[in-house]
């Protein structure tokens, strides 16, 4: 297991918004096929960390190594990096003026220059995979939240990323719609996708995660396998956090 490729490695990552020091010396390694779940209180920096990984936010300091190559935001083409690192947002961010299928084929055709017929074929396969083949030609406004999020997952997958980031993908959903999104994500994990997931769904973390990272105030305070971290948290702050949410 230790010989698996390091898909993401960050060293001493620091991020500030003005005077606000949001990420403090964060280290993290995510290996191929791993599912990492990030937990922590609101404002602890989980989204910021995720967003630094695909350079929606630019770090102030530290190293970000994606698939064994350090990325320099000033000299590397970040669009190329983002093609390999897909992201799913809390509020879906589907393109409302495009149909479901158009949402999915937009980036492959416009960014990779994929032939449209091929993109449509692959797009339909992806929609089938997330259980929405019959919704290909409707607009996002006609979908439920759970369906929207599954389209967003298909849209990200259409770029054939090596890594997928999820920022609270079920937090905006009605409780009865959470399951369908989580099972899509579980399926993805089973297929070997490398995933970093910010979530409050502890059940998902226990069942799917290889590693759980607990963040507090901009630092990774504790890392462990889910059964260890949830059952025997070593740090006081992790214990307090877990007892506050369970």
């Amino acid at each position: 297991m230790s010989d698996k490729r390091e898909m993401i490695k960050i060293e001493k990552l620091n991020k500030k918004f003005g005077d606000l020091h949001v990420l403090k010396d964060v280290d993290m390694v995510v290996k191929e096929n791993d599912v990492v779940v990030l937990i922590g209180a609101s404002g602890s920096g989980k989204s910021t960390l995720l967003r630094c990984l695909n350079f929606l936010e630019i770090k102030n300091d530290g190293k970000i190594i994606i698939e064994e190559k350090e990325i320099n935001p000033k000299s590397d083409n970040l669009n190329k990096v983002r093609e390999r690192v897909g992201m799913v947002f809390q509020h879906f961010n589907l393109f409302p003026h495009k149909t479901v299928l158009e949402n999915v084929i937009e980036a492959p055709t416009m960014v990779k220059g994929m032939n449209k017929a091929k993109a449509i074929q692959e797009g339909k396969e992806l929609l089938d995979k997330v259980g929405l083949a019959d919704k290909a030609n409707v607009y996002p406004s006609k979908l439920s939240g759970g369906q929207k999020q599954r389209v967003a997952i298909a849209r990200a997958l259409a770029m054939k990323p090596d890594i997928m980031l999820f920022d609270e993908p079920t937090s905006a959903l009605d409780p009865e719609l959470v399951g369908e999104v989580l099972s899509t994500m579980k399926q993805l994990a089973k297929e070997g996708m490398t995933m970093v997931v910010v979530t409050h769904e502890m059940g998902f973390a226990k069942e799917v995660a290889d590693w759980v990272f607990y963040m507090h105030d901009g630092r990774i305070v504790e890392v462990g396998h889910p059964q260890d971290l949830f059952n025997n948290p070593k740090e006081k702050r992790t214990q307090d956090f877990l007892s506050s949410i369970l």
Partner: protein
Amino acid sequence: MPSFSHFFQTFIESYPVFFKGMLLTLQVTAVSILIAIFIGLFFALLKISKVKVLEVIANFYIYIVRGTPLIVQIFIFYFGLSEMNISGFWSATLALAFHNGAYIAEIFRGTIQSIDKGQMEAGRSLGMTTALTMRRIILPQAFRRALPPLGNQFIIGLKDSSLAAFIGMYELFNVATTAGSNNFDSMTYLLIVAVYYLILVFLLTAVVSVMENKLSASD
């Protein structure tokens, strides 16, 4: 006030010359609005560019347009451009485009900024460049939201084209005042021209609402 039968008879009789004036009004309006849309989009993008110089340039342009009367702008274009042998038609059209462009820039700036910033992030997260996301994702949505205020601006542009009469364009308003003074019957001709403008505004409103319906398929 002229009697209705006199008004109606004059309306029918004067139809050929008003029709010509109407065509010129429509040309000036349509071409100037089309150019104004491009000018407006250009300056809207400068305003949101977050590049200080470009913002200052855009603000300066808008300040000039807002701070001076349209009739002054038209005459400046007319005298300035006639030195370069540019026709009255193009002087009026470009002046109106310059003028409407500033208002349209503000309309586009507002609707572009009203698009949720998650849209840009989603595009970027898929590997799309900022420019591509702007063109494919943000602008189509912003344009749709801009349609009602744009329609309003088109109507203003149509009515303002009457000022082209003052640099000798024989458009609707000029037709009316000329015919009115030739026939010592200004009131009748002014009422007639008012009806022409009302009809044109009505048609323009209809066209804009058809476009709105077409673009609302995704709602």
